């Protein structure tokens, strides 16, 4: 017995070798055959499991687009549902490869957490939802309100700033999970539910009587939501950035999942460059040249994804607004592929 003890002790000490070398996420992802994607715990329209248990939504489609770019297969994704509180730690520790979970891009998150934001896939802002029978029409009438929200979000900070700036007393009730916020607001614990406006429209669907509630017109913050990757791996960061850019560029060029095969033989050189018929842009980021073709073929361009998940014909019924292309008066503008 004593003979086995020594190697055991030493083995324990030596065996715990740092697996933190995260330099080549692309190689790791290719080796394991799928992308581990961090999503929300259930936000309709953005990341939510459907009746069959398949994840759907705008943020989920971004993960599928990345998988298409890397593997040519949109289903090569595994999802990790994360609370707002857990999300950054999960990414930092390497538990997930990319975080696509309606996460607001702020300076402190970008600079102090060892993370990089790969762009903005939804321009949001924080809003307030109240019961219609309160007769409130403006957020400035919310003095004295109890406010339900999620803990560990920028929302919690914005609401504190807003009520302080307008010198209004308030009471904050902050829950860990969005479902509990909805339940407490529905039970009447709070007068106001605050989160990103997109989230309000999504969560309103979960209330007992969605029609009894309204979203106030004020938007009190800038909430650019986007996918996040770890700092220190520029190749993976580039793939994340250009997956999003390819989807936006495709919409701008009118390339859709339906016409992408025809567009491959288009005369337009920028379309040819995007779809890999000209140049070697895919190889430059460590992928094959039809990376963007796969994204659009398997998932669709940004406009298609938006319409399918949160657009006017979905239960959420969100109009494009500021999320329209720059050429249509919105904010979406992707650098060109050339």
């Amino acid at each position, binding site marked *: 017995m004593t003979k086995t003890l020594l190697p055991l002790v030493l083995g324990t*000490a030596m065996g715990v070798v*740092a697996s*933190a070398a*995260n330099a080549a996420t692309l190689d790791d992802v290719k080796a394991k055959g799928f992308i581990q994607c961090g999503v929300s715990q259930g936000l309709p329209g953005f990341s939510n499991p459907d009746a069959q248990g398949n994840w759907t939504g705008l943020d989920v489609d971004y993960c599928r687009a990345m998988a298409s770019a890397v593997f040519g297969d949109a289903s090569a994704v595994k999802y990790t549902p994360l609370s707002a509180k857990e999300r950054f730690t999960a990414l930092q520790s390497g538990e997930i490869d990319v975080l696509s979970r309606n996460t607001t891009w702020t300076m402190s998150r970008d600079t102090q957490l060892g993370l990089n934001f790969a762009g903005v896939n939804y321009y949001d802002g924080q809003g307030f939802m109240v019961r219609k029978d309160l007769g409130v029409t403006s957020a400035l009438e919310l003095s004295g309100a*109890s406010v339900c929200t999620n803990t*560990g979000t920028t929302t919690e900070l914005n609401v504190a*700033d807003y009520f302080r700036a307008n010198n209004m*007393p308030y009471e904050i*009730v*902050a829950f860990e999970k969005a479902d509990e916020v909805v339940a407490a607001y529905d039970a009447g614990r709070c007068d106001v539910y605050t989160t990103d406006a997109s989230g309000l429209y999504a969560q309103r669907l979960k209330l007992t009587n969605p029609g009894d509630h309204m979203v106030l017109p004020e938007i009190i913050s800038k909430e650019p939501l986007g996918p996040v990757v770890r700092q220190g791996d520029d190749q993976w960061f580039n793939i994340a950035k250009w997956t999003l850019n390819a989807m936006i560029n495709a919409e701008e060029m009118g390339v859709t999942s339906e016409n992408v095969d025809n567009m491959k033989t288009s005369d337009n050189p920028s379309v040819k460059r995007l779809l890999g018929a000209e140049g070697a842009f895919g190889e430059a980021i460590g992928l094959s040249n039809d990376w963007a073709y796969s994204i659009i073929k398997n998932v669709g361009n940004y406009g298609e994804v938006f319409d399918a998940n949160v657009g006017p014909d979905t239960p959420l019924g969100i109009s494009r607004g500021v999320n329209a292309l720059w050429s249509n008066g919105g904010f979406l503008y992707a650098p060109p592929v050339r």
Partner: protein
Amino acid sequence: MAVQEQDSAGAPARASLVNDPKVRSLFYQVILVAGLVALGYFIVTNTIANLERQNIASGWGFLENTAGFGIIQSLIPYAETSTYGTAIMVGFFNTLMVAVVGIFFATIIGFVVGIARLSNNWVISKLAYWYVELIRNVPLLLQIFFWYFAVLRAVPGKRDKWSFGFDTFHLNITGLYGPKPIWETGSAFIVYAFILAIVLSVVIAKWAKKRQDATGQQFPVFLTAIGLIVGLPVITYFVTGMPVYLEHPNYVEKGPILRRGFELGVGAKLIPEFLALTAALAIYTAAFIAEIVRAGIQAVSHGQTEAARALGIRNGPTLRLVIIPQAMRVIIPPLTSQYLNLTKNSSLAVAIAFPDLVSVGGTVLNQTGQAIEIIAIWMAVYLSLSLITSAFMNWYNQRMALVER
């Protein structure tokens, strides 16, 4: 071979160093400790190196930064402009409050139910039995949700109330409201009087015990102590000119709709998150304490009861003076574990928005990204709380333990 022959010849047998059991065990212990130290050193340096490489800020400086978020309940002064350090202290005191109040009620309910289970009354013992079986077999988190979400829907809304206790206390979905004592200058004397009364009671109790040992005469210590502890502060209150007054919650019925209901910050208020969490923890832990109490009492031999009866001692004093003191020796060690469990289970507060240490710490973690530091704080706080509880209970256990004469 020559050596061995010499050994058998009479000198004390000396095995080689490798085969000496003392040396061997020492050797392996040294190796084990060295291995553990090396492992610890490796983990710490590796973590620091990784954090630096991934550009994750580390250190304790963040505790000085402005928190910027609101907290619904605070025992110490806190505003959005306070620091992260203050916010964590707020969470710590909230945890402490839940633990203390929860332990207090769990102990009372637990003892009552435990004794009730041994009652000769069929209804009472069956009720206690079903209480224990029902409560301890349902997960605690579900019970917290029950007390919060199910009961929350049953109480009146924000602009309505239930009043009880001669209109002094009010309950609605935003909490339990009651009068808040406002301490003005001079009120410190009342506190001094209260402390003095406790000291006097202890002195009288010691004197009464001595007298009883010497003469057999009893003295009504309990009534005297109650009289002192209530009477002295009340007398002081009137002598110093009534420096304490009660601030009643202000129920507004007119004005902007969101301002109706109870005005924020007037009167005393217990938020429903606190009520639900404390109720769930106390009731859940009480079920286990009841079993511990029952086991403790049954561990006292029945001969003790019979002996007490033979001496003509009535049922009440038998329980109080003969059974319980002996049962306590069996009860205290497992009771300590239950107290520790209750304190640690209070971290489930995060599920129902009670701002305890884990909830507030989690917010700070998310705003600053200082995961390792926050988790270190969490672990240190729960460890210290548990060690303090154990130390106190061990001290109490030693006092109660059988003194061998």
